[in-house]
């Protein structure tokens, strides 16, 4: 922990903590007000949640409805945990200024130039003639110039790694950018009693370095005159629920009420509706092929070579059919699909984990490799 050293009160020598949410603190021994002047102090702000529990709940349950989701999911989802998380962002503001060397361009027309002769270089006919006239008369003159820059900057940067939490940092940053005006000073004790504060693990030095580099790239001569670094917390609700034996999560932001991310169960009926007709269709093709092959063999008068050819053809056909067709039907029903919630409430069918191996997985692998070799002409 950063506060592993105690501070001494300058008046009585008693121990005092480095404050967390305000530089103002108090000596626990003499009760005098003290001010922490250390450079490592970062003021903290928060966007207060805008919606009450009822709204968040209704937002959550309305998000459990959809064509891709199991019927009755809103009534059958069992909420295991509903927790607020305060996600930290660094807010860098300040002033940058300097004198930028630039160049001023001036278009100069010289009326003395221009031959008036026909020329086909600029194009055919009269268009080419006039184009060449213009090109000869006009030139661009550059002169050194400068521009004084004195302006404010504002830069937002994630202060924690959010991938493990499945919270989309970029979208939250946009939400914060749009709602910065409602940010207020955070009372950390209040925050910690109303939710989990995610620690800012990204070092502030790295953020400042990135920010300063980006401004300096804007042009030599411009430098940072003043910089203020703050932490701003954005509240997100995480809802963990169970459907059947499986656990799912959903994140909702409490500023604009948007579904940010999460996973939902997939309605398996769709996979069955695709897999069953596929199997029946394959069976139909098999039956028809067998019937045709048998008819061909009988028509050939039982000649050995024709019978043999027929058997090879049927055998090869079956291999392709089983390895590709049946495997596809297997995949449709055995792939553990789930619905991934994307920012803005969009949904995408995604694979939750690798598909278990089926009886024809090895065969389909063999056939695929053989076909691939055949197409490439045997080259690796």
């Amino acid at each position, binding site marked *: 922990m950063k506060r592993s050293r105690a501070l001494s009160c*300058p008046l009585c020598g008693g121990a005092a903590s480095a404050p967390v949410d305000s530089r*103002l603190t108090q000596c626990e021994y003499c009760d005098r007000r*003290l001010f*922490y002047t250390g450079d490592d102090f970062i003021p903290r702000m928060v966007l207060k949640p805008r919606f009450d529990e009822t709204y968040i709940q209704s937002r959550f349950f309305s998000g459990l409805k959809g064509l891709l989701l199991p019927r009755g999911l809103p009534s059958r989802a069992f909420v295991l945990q509903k927790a607020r998380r305060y996600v930290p962002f660094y807010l860098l503001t300040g002033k940058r200024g300097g004198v930028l060397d630039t160049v001023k361009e001036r278009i100069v027309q010289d009326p003395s130039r221009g031959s008036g002769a026909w020329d086909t270089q600029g194009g055919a006919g009269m268009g080419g003639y006039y184009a060449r006239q213009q090109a000869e008369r006009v030139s661009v003159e550059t002169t050194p110039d*400068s521009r004084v820059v004195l302006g404010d900057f504002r830069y937002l940067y994630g202060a924690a790694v959010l991938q493990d939490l499945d919270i989309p940092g970029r979208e939250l940053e946009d939400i914060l950018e749009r709602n910065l*005006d409602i940010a207020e000073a955070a009372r950390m004790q209040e925050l910690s009693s109303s939710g989990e504060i995610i620690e800012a693990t990204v070092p502030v030095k790295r953020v400042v370095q990135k920010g300063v580099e980006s401004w300096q790239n804007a042009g030599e001569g411009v430098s940072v005159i*003043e910089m*203020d670094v703050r932490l701003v917390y954005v509240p997100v609700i995480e809802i963990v629920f169970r459907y059947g034996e499986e656990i799912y999560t959903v994140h909702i932001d409490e500023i604009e009420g948007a579904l940010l991310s999460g996973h939902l169960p997939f309605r398996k009926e769709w996979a069955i509706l695709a897999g069953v007709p596929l199997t029946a269709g394959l069976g139909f093709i098999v039956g028809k092929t067998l019937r045709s092959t048998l008819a061909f063999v009988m028509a050939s008068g039982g000649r050995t070579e024709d019978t043999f050819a027929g058997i090879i053809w049927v055998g090869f056909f079956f291999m392709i059919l089983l390895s590709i067709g049946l495997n596809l039907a297997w995949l449709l029903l055995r792939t553990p699909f789930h619905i991934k919630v994307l920012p803005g409430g969009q949904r995408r069918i995604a694979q939750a984990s690798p598909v278990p191996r089926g009886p024809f997985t090895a065969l389909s692998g063999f056939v695929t490799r053989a076909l691939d070799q055949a197409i490439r002409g045997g080259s690796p």
Partner: protein
Amino acid sequence: MTPKKGAPASVLVPVLCPACGRELSVDRGDRIALCLTCRKATFLSRDLPTYDLSYVVPPSGSRKADRYVPFWRVEGEATILADEKKARLYAGIKRLGDLYYPAFWLPRIQHFQDFTMRYALLDGPLETEPREDPVPGGIRSPEMLRAMARLTWLTHLDRVEDVSGVDVRYEVKRITLAAVPFFRESNAWLDGICLSKLPPNLF
């Protein structure tokens, strides 16, 4: 009990007026503390630099301010270093008066981008009066004022003629904390000097 003399400066400083020893008035989140008895503003840092506190009188009459907002007022002398041709051009422009820079912080401070120039181009310095109203929100350090004053002058000159090869030497004579009156209208804030409209949720 006061800190021992000669001891290294502590990172914790008592919130007491360096002049009279009374407790200073400062809000949570602020860094500029006021002693309304001495009419001084102290920037809370290890050195505790102190500045005079003055309240600006609104030129528009005797309307009572709804809020006093802290600005750093910089009084100084600018010397323009330029070639003869440019010096002649600059000689004709209006010289900037006292420079006022916001001492408070807002996430989107661009509302105050041109306030410095507007106040500096007023005819004559602004009148002040003694008061004891609170002036909350003072956060920004006065360390950057000299650099900002120089650039403000360069910006002013750049409007007339390109400042390539031009420099401004700015000598700061005095820095004070100026409490500028702001008035609340139904759906806006108005600054008490130019009566410019600002968004209602600013403060």
